[in-house]
């Protein structure tokens, strides 16, 4: 599915300073029963966000109107656990376009890139800096510049570079995806398959 192009993003951010946020928290298994990719944002962080009867939990960050924005900032090892792309869909569907953490689980990172979410990995110190800045002022804006590969805390001017491989960067910048690319090399794949012993 082609997605929105990603170039730069300037936004306030929602802080979630918890380590090892696993995909079962991002979207619990019981919400994976759809056969179409829509509406997953309603159940993003379902069990942290709502009581069983659907009442919002006042102490969960997404229910605090002070914190808004298109950037989600999570603790170390964000997105561990299952391969469910639904976790990335839920984050995207809710309205986030970028997730910042000091460390991402592999499959979550891949899934995010594949659907147009930019995972930005920063140093633990920079991550702490973001949390501190947002705690001091929830209106703190972050600026993520994909072409320059930098993230900046606008209130303090603190900036850090992040890495992304040039292929994925090109895709995100242009809104292309891997399926487009793979379709362009089907003849090579046919030839490769013909040699396979399996």
């Amino acid at each position, binding site marked *: 599915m082609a997605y929105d192009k990603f170039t730069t993003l300037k936004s306030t951010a929602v802080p979630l300073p918890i380590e090892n946020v696993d995909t079962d928290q991002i979207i619990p298994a019981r919400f994976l029963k759809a056969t179409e990719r829509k509406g997953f944002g309603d159940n993003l962080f379902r069990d942290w966000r709502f009581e069983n009867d659907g009442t919002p939990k006042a102490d969960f960050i997404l229910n605090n109107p002070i914190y808004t924005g298109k950037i989600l900032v999570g603790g170390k090892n964000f997105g561990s656990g299952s391969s469910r792309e639904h976790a990335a869909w839920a984050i995207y569907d809710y309205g986030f376009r970028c997730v910042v953490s000091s460390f991402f689980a592999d*499959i979550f990172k891949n*899934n995010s890139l594949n659907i147009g979410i930019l995972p930005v990995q920063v140093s633990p110190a920079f991550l702490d800096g973001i949390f501190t800045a947002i705690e001091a002022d929830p209106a703190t804006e972050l600026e993520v510049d994909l072409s320059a590969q930098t993230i900046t805390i606008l209130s303090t001017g603190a900036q850090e570079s992040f890495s992304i*491989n040039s292929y*994925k960067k090109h895709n995100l910048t242009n809104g292309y*995806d891997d399926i487009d690319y793979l*379709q362009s090399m089907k003849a090579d*794949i046919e030839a490769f398959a013909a040699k396979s012993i399996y």
Partner: protein
Amino acid sequence: MSQKPATLFDKVWDAHVVRNIEDGPDVFFIDRHFIHEVTSPVAFLGMEQRGLNVMFPGKTFATADHNTPTINQHLPVEDPLSANQLKALETNTAKYGISHWGLGNPKNGIVHVVGPENGITLPGMTIVCGDSHTSTHGAFGAIAFGIGTSEVEMVLTSQCIMQPKPKKMRISVNGELGKGITPKDVALYIISQLTTAGATGYFVEYAGEVFEQMSMEGRMTVCNMSIEMGARGGMIAPDETTFDYIRGREKAPVGAAWEEALAYWKTLKTEEGATFDKEYHFNAADIEPMITYGTNPGMGMGITGHIPSAVDAGSNKASYEKSLQYMGFHEEEPMLGKKVDYVFIGSCTNGRIEDFRAFASIVKGRKKADHVTAWIVPGSHIVERQIKEEGILDILTDAGFQLRQPGCSACLAMNDDKIPAGKYAVSTSNRNFEGRQGPGSRTLLASPLVAAAAAVTGVVTDPRELLA
């Protein structure tokens, strides 16, 4: 050949690169694609919206497992959303000519159980599935890992995915495991040492005496749990144990094809002098029966020990405290003797015949604890049949247990098998995340022996005390 010595992982990976993109991923060819009802429907839909077709339907195999009920499988599935996903899998596979073992098929079962037991999983293959525990198949010396739905669509339409080559890690465990120490304990021990992010970015090869002596089913358990330390997957070099397991299985090669395959498989090992990006060495003698106390699989401990303090756990204090609060536990308290409400044996980690043999070895001649609800769920119909044929069902029945029908069941609670909020479950599955086995459920991961000991005593018990 003057090339530098290669690892098992290099050999299999490099043999599957269709194209290498500079500073980008490899175009990586997939030999076997497993699909199930949960992560495939959107992939089929996306493919159709793009006007594409399945490129090699014969390389994809489908089974229904995540949603399926474990009782009354002959009746229509009650949950309309589950029924809808199961129907979508049936329709999609029929439309594109993909093999499908749905409910009622004698070969139906959990995707990572049925692949190996039917000879679909073979050494040297690349195997993917929209399920993180695809790492299970690495036990055969295959590169196997979980993918997302966009990638399922890629494999359907091009038999390839775009993957950067992971770094390489080798984990060696030498020495001899003590009595009552199972492959699950080995896996939980390693993860407790490395943490849930300790192998992120790596593909792991397991080596050393413990894995050389381990059965295929044990190796599958270990490789299955690789994902729980963040690894993309784990693998073990194929050997005579592997070949003996595969020989004669339904879809395994025969005759000249077998000989040709075998000759190739025997080359699949890490060469002397090959290097890894990271190496770990552990001693088998240090491993006890393990149990988890927290909300990720890295929060495990020897069953006779005490829950570590936040300082020792090496994790962020707030996350650690949140975890113990969810579990209703405290720092530095013992786990032995804690009351257990539910016991679950099954899943792609421990739903194979050896696991039920181990469970029965402790249950035999004893009775189920009155207050414990036990869900005993084979990984496939073939395992279910073995349980009956080997007399294990009689042992279970005499002890007051009932056998359910195959599926993922309470591992991720997408069907009706949900642990109620606040209740404690000793589970042989792979994840103890908050709410994993039902909203509010509290999971203690452990081996089939620890599960059996809990099922008969009603509390966390060292299984070594009950072994003959």
